[in-house]
C-alpha cells in the first residue's frame, strides 16, 4: 500500500507502557472484577462482522487492522452501529494513519445515515500498545471521549475477546501525565430483524462446508415449533428433578413457571372452535382467490398470443 501524502506523523508522547505482560494480565483481571465507570457500550453484530472481514483482508505484513466506529451516543450509553476500516502503517517506532481517507469515508457514510457520528475506533489484536495511545489521541480530536474497542482475531485465548475502553488521564499533575484505558461493559444488542438474520447465520456453523441455503416456509414453522418443544422438555426435566428432590427448588424460577402457565388463555371449546374455523376460512378463501387470479392471468397470456 503506498503511503499517501496526507498521512501525518503523530509526535510521540510519553505514555505508560502496556506491553509488559504482568500489567496486561492485571488489566484483564481488572476488566473482570472492576465496577466500570463509563458509558455502556452496545454493539450491533454488523460491526463485528465488518471488523473480522477487514482483518481477513488486511495487507500482507500488517499484524493488525484499525478503523473508525460510527454510532450514536447519549448520556449513559454508546451504541455502535457501523464501522469502516482505515489503512494505516505501523512499525517499531512510528505509526501513520491515513486521516484523509478516514475523513472522506466518514463524509460518504454521513450521506447515507446522517445521524451516525464518530464515536471511537477499533483495533484487532490482544493488547493495547503505545501506538494505540497515539491513535486514540487523534480520535479524541474527532469525537468527545472516544471509545476504543479491541477484537482479538488472533484468538490468543481460544476465544474472540471483544473489549472496549475509554481513556482517562492519570499520573501526577504538572509532571509526567499518562493515559490509562479503563474497561467498559459491552452488551450486544440486535434489532428484531437482525436477531432473525443472526439466527439463520448461526445455522451455517452446523454444516461442514459452512454453507446454508434459505429454507422453505413450512419447514421454518416446523423448526420453530421444534425449538419450542426442546425448551419445554428442558423445563419439564427440571421440574421433575425438583419434584423428586434432586435439585433445590428456586422461588424465582417457580414464579416464572406460574406466570407461564397463567398466560395460556382459558377459552371454552366452542369459542375456540369458532375462532379457529373463521381463521381457517379466511385463509382458505384468500388462497382460492390467489389461485383464481393466477389462473386468470395465465389465461390472459394465452389469449393474447393467439
Amino acid at each position, binding site marked *: 500500500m503506498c503511503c499517501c501524502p496526507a498521512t501525518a506523523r503523530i509526535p510521540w508522547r510519553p505514555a505508560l507502557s502496556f506491553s509488559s505482560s504482568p500489567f496486561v494480565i492485571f488489566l484483564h483481571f481488572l476488566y473482570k472484577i472492576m465496577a466500570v465507570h463509563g458509558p455502556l457500550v452496545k454493539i*450491533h*453484530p*454488523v460491526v463485528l*462482522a*465488518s471488523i*473480522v*472481514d477487514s482483518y*481477513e*483482508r488486511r495487507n500482507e505484513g500488517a499484524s493488525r487492522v484499525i478503523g473508525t466506529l460510527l454510532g450514536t451516543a447519549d448520556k449513559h450509553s454508546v451504541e455502535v*452501529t*457501523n464501522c469502516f*476500516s*482505515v489503512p494505516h502503517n505501523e512499525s517499531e517506532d512510528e505509526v501513520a494513519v*491515513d486521516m484523509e*481517507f478516514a475523513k472522506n*469515508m466518514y463524509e460518504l457514510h454521513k*450521506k*447515507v*445515515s446522517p*445521524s451516525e457520528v464518530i464515536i471511537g475506533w477499533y483495533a484487532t489484536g490482544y493488547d493495547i500498545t503505545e501506538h494505540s495511545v497515539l491513535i486514540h489521541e487523534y480520535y479524541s480530536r474527532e469525537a468527545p471521549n472516544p471509545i476504543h474497542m479491541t477484537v482479538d482475531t488472533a484468538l490468543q485465548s481460544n476465544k*474472540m475477546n471483544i473489549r472496549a475502553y475509554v481513556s482517562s488521564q492519570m499520573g501526577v499533575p504538572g509532571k509526567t501525565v499518562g493515559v490509562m484505558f479503563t474497561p467498559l461493559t459491552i452488551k450486544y444488542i*440486535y*434489532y*428484531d430483524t*437482525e*436477531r*432473525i*438474520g*443472526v*439466527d*439463520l*447465520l448461526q445455522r*451455517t456453523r452446523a454444516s461442514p*462446508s*459452512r*454453507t*446454508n*441455503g*434459505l*429454507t422453505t*416456509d*413450512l419447514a*421454518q*414453522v416446523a423448526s420453530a415449533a421444534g*425449538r*419450542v418443544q426442546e425448551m419445554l422438555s428442558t423445563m419439564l426435566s427440571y421440574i421433575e428433578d425438583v419434584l423428586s428432590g434432586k435439585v433445590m427448588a428456586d422461588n424465582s424460577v417457580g414464579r416464572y413457571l406460574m406466570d407461564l402457565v397463567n398466560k*395460556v388463555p382459558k377459552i371454552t371449546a366452542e369459542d375456540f372452535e369458532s375462532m*379457529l374455523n373463521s381463521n*381457517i376460512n*379466511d*385463509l*382458505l378463501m*384468500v388462497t382460492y382467490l*390467489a389461485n383464481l387470479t*393466477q389462473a386468470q*392471468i395465465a389465461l*390472459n*397470456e394465452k389469449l*393474447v*398470443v393467439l
Partner: protein
Amino acid sequence: NLPFFITCLVVLKIIKHYQEEGQGSEVVQGVLLGLVVEDRLEITNCFPFPQHTEDDVDFDEVQYQMEMMRSLRHVNIDHLHVGWYQSTYYGSFVSRALLDSQFSYQHAIEESVVLIYDPIKTAQGSLCLKAYRLTPKLMEICKEKDFSPEALKKACIGYEHMLEEVPIVIKNSHLINVLLLDLQEKSTVADKHELLNLSSSNHLEKSLQLLMDRVDGMSQEIVKYNTYCRNLTKQQQQKQQYLQRRQQENTQRQSRGEPPLPEEDINKMFKPPQAPPRMDTLLIAGQVNNYCQNIKAFTSQNLGKLFMAEALQGHSS
C-alpha cells in the same frame, strides 16, 4: 441455475440499512460488491445508497459510487460491481425501473443479480432474501427495445419467464464462525418466536389490497388491448369495403368506357392503429403472480400454525 454465495456481512449490512434508513414503504437500495469465481458469483460486501431527498438536488450518484469504490479498494475490499439490492414492500418490486437497472447491470456483467430483501416477511420470523436475474429471452428483448406484441409473441415470453430466481447460499469463513459462536454464548437477547405468531389478518389485508390495485391496473391494460384489437379488425373491414367499392366502380366505369380511377395508396388512407406496448402488461402480470405466490406461502404457513394450535388445545382440554 447455479446458486451463488453470499457472506454474513452482506446479510447483516442489508438488514441494518433497511432498519435504520427505510421505515415505512420507502425503498432502500445499495450496491453489491464481490467477484466471480469459476463462473460462480460470490458477494462479499455491499454499501448503501443514500435516499433521494428533495434538498439534495445536486447530489451526484455516480460520483458517490466512484468515491466509495475507490476508498474500498484501498482497504482491499472487492470492488467489482456485481449487482444491487433493494428492499420491497410486501413483495412489490416488479417494475419498469427494476427492469431497466437490472438490464444495465446484466449487460455489463452477465452474472449480475438483484437481491430483494423483504423486511416485513423477515420481521415475521425468517430471513427473506431472494435473488433474481433477467432471463436471456428478456435480455434480448430489452436490447432491441422493441416491446410490441409481435416481438414478444415471437420470443414467447410470458410473465413467468421474465425473472428467474437464483438460489442463495450463505457461506462464511472460519473466523466468522468463531465470531458467531462467541455471539451466541455472550448475547442475552431472548428469542421472541415471531414465527409462531397466529395473527394473520393485518398482513392479509395489506397484501390483498395491493393485489387488488394491480388487478385493476391489469384490467385496464386488457381493456386497452381489446379496444386495439377491435379497432384493428374494424379497420380491416373498412379496407375491404373500400377495395370492393373501388372494384365495383372500376368495372362500372369500364362498362361505360371511361378510364378507371387511379389506384390510391390504401395504407396511407387507413393508417393502422398504434399497438399498445405489451411490456407494462407483462410487468403487471408478473407482479400479480408474485403477490399471489407470496400470499399462498403466507397462508400455508398460517394454516399449519392454526392446525398446530388446534392440536394443542384439543390436547389440553
